């Protein structure tokens, strides 16, 4: 094999967030003209790493060399100018602009003073045609489906001349035909000498598109292998790194009576959802991004509209068309939201002020807060949940992700809630804290709570849940229980991608 030319040299790259070392002294090389897969479990630091490469995250320490020259991206623009582009995991588009305007923003073709719309649309058409994307350049982005929007993002990134193109889980909401197109194009770019860094969870993709693979775990570099020489068993060992039997502390109990039931629940992004959860059960909800899981949770909690159907808790109607969070909280439903910092916490308030929020209405009936009662309450939950803090007066924004999650949990436990919805409960939380959160969930189930857990982390979902519901395009597409032989990641993905008929 010919000697490999190094395109991007990564040395001792490091990034630290409060309480978590996201990327810890990572060093490896990306060759010219290769598809380099970066793989690892959720929270392994893959996204943080590539965001540093693309100028989206600042670099704490370490050096980068692009084609032998020092490379230190100031921001996305600077990275783009130097030839490093990224296809984001999250969409960032201008909804009220056309496809062509989104793709060519900032470099619109002009004829003298005027924008040459015709040329812009033609250039856009050529680009989309080359990708075999059947979208009209003059369509408004708001009128596209999520998958189509993602294809437009891909097209935009490909329209730049890239030395290094980073794809952060680009296929998460694409159809198999679109994935084929993307792969065809990826190979073409690779053969032309572009280096592609490709982040994925899916083993199948890795085998199909990758040349080499780098494994990361808990923010650290584990190793790089040639895909052709890799042994699947070895790869999984590298990713997991330890015996995983004890990663999920869960004692399965005999489920109690039915605690939660939804009856043909229909909201904006899901329809006719019938689920039931018994006391003492942890039920997982799986699905791709956009499948409607979070929206379902928010509707059950009375935050998002319910169009028809109802939620029953302990046999009593807890929420329906005239939805409200007040009603849900009073009935005993709680939600630990996906975006903890924005939706779950008051970051500039203290731990005790946060813990008392949901129960304050019941606790202080005359409307006057009693600091002593507040402190007693928070004291109790800080101890009970082992929140690592010196006092209840500490501001929540100063806590680590895991401890913040415990504060959210404390807020709900204070209301003596019977039904807890965890939406991505361990996202951005380090391994040790994850274990603690799982333990608490297990304990709550044992004490008779009904728990619903939404997670994109399939091993976690399988490790903790008694049963898993799978959603696809806003519908309940399947249910897999622990007793079945098919209680596997593959089974869940199969249903999540293809829907009911083939499961």
């Amino acid at each position, binding site marked *: 094999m010919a000697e490999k030319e190094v395109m991007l040299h990564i040395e001792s790259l490091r990034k630290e967030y409060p309480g978590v070392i996201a990327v810890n002294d990572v060093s490896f090389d990306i060759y010219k003209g290769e598809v380099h897969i970066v793989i690892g479990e959720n929270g392994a630091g893959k996204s943080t790493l590539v965001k540093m490469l693309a100028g989206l995250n600042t670099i704490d320490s370490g050096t980068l060399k692009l084609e032998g020259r020092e490379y230190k991206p100031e921001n996305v623009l600077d990275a783009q100018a130097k030839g490093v582009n990224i296809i984001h995991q999250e969409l960032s588009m201008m*909804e*009220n602009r056309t496809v062509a305007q989104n793709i060519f*923003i900032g*470099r619109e073709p002009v004829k003298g003073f*005027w*924008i040459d719309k015709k040329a812009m649309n033609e250039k856009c058409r050529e680009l989309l045609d080359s990708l075999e994307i059947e979208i009209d350049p003059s369509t408004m982005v708001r*009128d596209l489906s*999520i998958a189509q929007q993602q294809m437009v993002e891909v097209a935009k990134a490909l329209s730049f001349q890239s030395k290094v193109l980073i794809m952060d889980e680009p296929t998460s909401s694409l159809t198999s035909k679109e994935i084929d197109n993307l792969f065809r194009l990826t190979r073409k770019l690779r053969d032309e000498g572009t280096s592609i860094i490709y982040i994925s969870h899916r083993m199948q993709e890795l085998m199909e598109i990758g040349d080499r693979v780098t494994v990361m775990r808990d923010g650290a570099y584990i190793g790089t292998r040639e895909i052709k020489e890799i042994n699947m068993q070895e790869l999984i060992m590298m990713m997991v790194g330890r015996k995983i039997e004890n990663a999920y502390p869960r004692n399965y109990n005999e489920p109690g009576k039915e605690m939660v039931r939804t009856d043909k629940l229909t909201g904006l*992004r899901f329809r006719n959802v019938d689920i039931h959860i018994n006391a003492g059960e942890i039920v997982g909800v799986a699905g791709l991004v956009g499948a409607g899981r979070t929206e379902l949770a928010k509707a059950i909690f009375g935050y998002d509209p319910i169009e028809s159907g109802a939620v029953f808790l302990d046999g009593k109607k807890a929420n329906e068309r005239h939805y409200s969070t007040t009603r849900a909280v009073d009935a005993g439903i709680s939600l630990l939201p996906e975006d903890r910092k924005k939706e779950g916490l008051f970051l500039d308030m203290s731990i005790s002020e946060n813990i008392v929020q949901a129960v304050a209405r019941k606790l202080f009936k005359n409307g006057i807060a009693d600091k002593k009662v507040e402190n007693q309450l928070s004291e109790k939950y800080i101890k009970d949940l082992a929140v690592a803090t010196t006092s209840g007066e500490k501001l929540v924004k100063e806590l680590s992700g895991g401890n913040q999650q415990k504060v959210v949990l404390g807020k709900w436990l204070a209301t003596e809630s019977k039904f807890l919805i965890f939406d991505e409960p361990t996202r951005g939380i380090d391994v040790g804290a994850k274990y603690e959160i799982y333990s608490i969930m297990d304990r709550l189930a044992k004490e008779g709570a009904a728990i619903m857990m939404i997670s994109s982390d399939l091993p976690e979902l399988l490790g903790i849940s008694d049963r898993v519901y799978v959603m696809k*395009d806003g519908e309940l597409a399947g249910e897999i229980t622990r007793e079945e032989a098919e209680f596997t990641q593959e089974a869940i993905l199969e249903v999540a991608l293809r829907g009911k008929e083939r499961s």
Partner: protein
Amino acid sequence: MMVKQNIKKVSGIMWASLLMVVLMLIFVPNFSQPRNFDNILKNTAVLLIISIGMTMAILSSQIDLSIGGVMSASAMISAMYLSRFEEPTAVQILITFLIGIIVGLAFGLINGVMIGIFKYNYWLVTFATMSMGYGLAQVVTNGNIIAGFSKTFRHVADGKMGGAVSNVIIITILIVVIMMLLLARTRFGMHIYAVGDSEQCAAQSGIVVPKIRILVYAISGILAGLGGVLLVSKTNSASATIGNGYEFDAIAAVIIGGTPFEGGKGGLGGTVIGALVIQAFKAGLQLMGVSSYWQQTLVGIFILLIIVVDVISENQKLIKKTRRIYRDE
């Protein structure tokens, strides 16, 4: 295409407004007189000139509250200069307008730099410059009114150069057409929409957001300055309160015209209709003998109604869109 979009967006509000105008035509005596129409058009013209800046500010998902204050300041400062001459020459009149425009530009630049570069809150900044403008207008003449200008100066707005149509209307049409082209057909225009739609996305796509913001407020200031002087020419008097309430009428014209506060959507076409509707509504109330205090109240109620209608129809659209994307694939 931009125009088509606007019309689609405006339609609900347009029907309501059209209905109102028809009702006034039928029930308000003298509403259909040519003199009344000329009056409405002239009033619309001044409002429209300053509403262009407001449209741009709102399209970029911000707002320019300073417009009324800037009008007052530019009106008073330029009127002070002009009042030194018994019979000003064409050059002196030109200088009068230039002074007004420069005063407006100065205010616009303060707004733009504070907001665009130093990232201060646009409500606070333009609120402060509004106050500065009104204050400065009083300072320069100790609160006195300047009135009784020469015929040549009055002719700039009120004269009829080309026959039947007042000059101020022709000037406005010219500016509106230029600004429409600027918004719809140039990079700068596109980038105003882009910044209003998603500032983050715009910045990450290589648009220099501070530059866009500075230009938007500078243009808004220039037009407010010009509007102030034109208003003096049209009314033949300059007082420190001359711009009072224009910022609110401008916001109303933009909102009625279907450019929502969230930015990135809408355009000048709607604002033209919005300004016409407001001035027709006010003229109708005037002819019905409604006091100016009540006029202001009724305009407020009218805007409130439009917002309610708009929010309901937007929500319906949003629900339909969500259903389409998430259900029928």
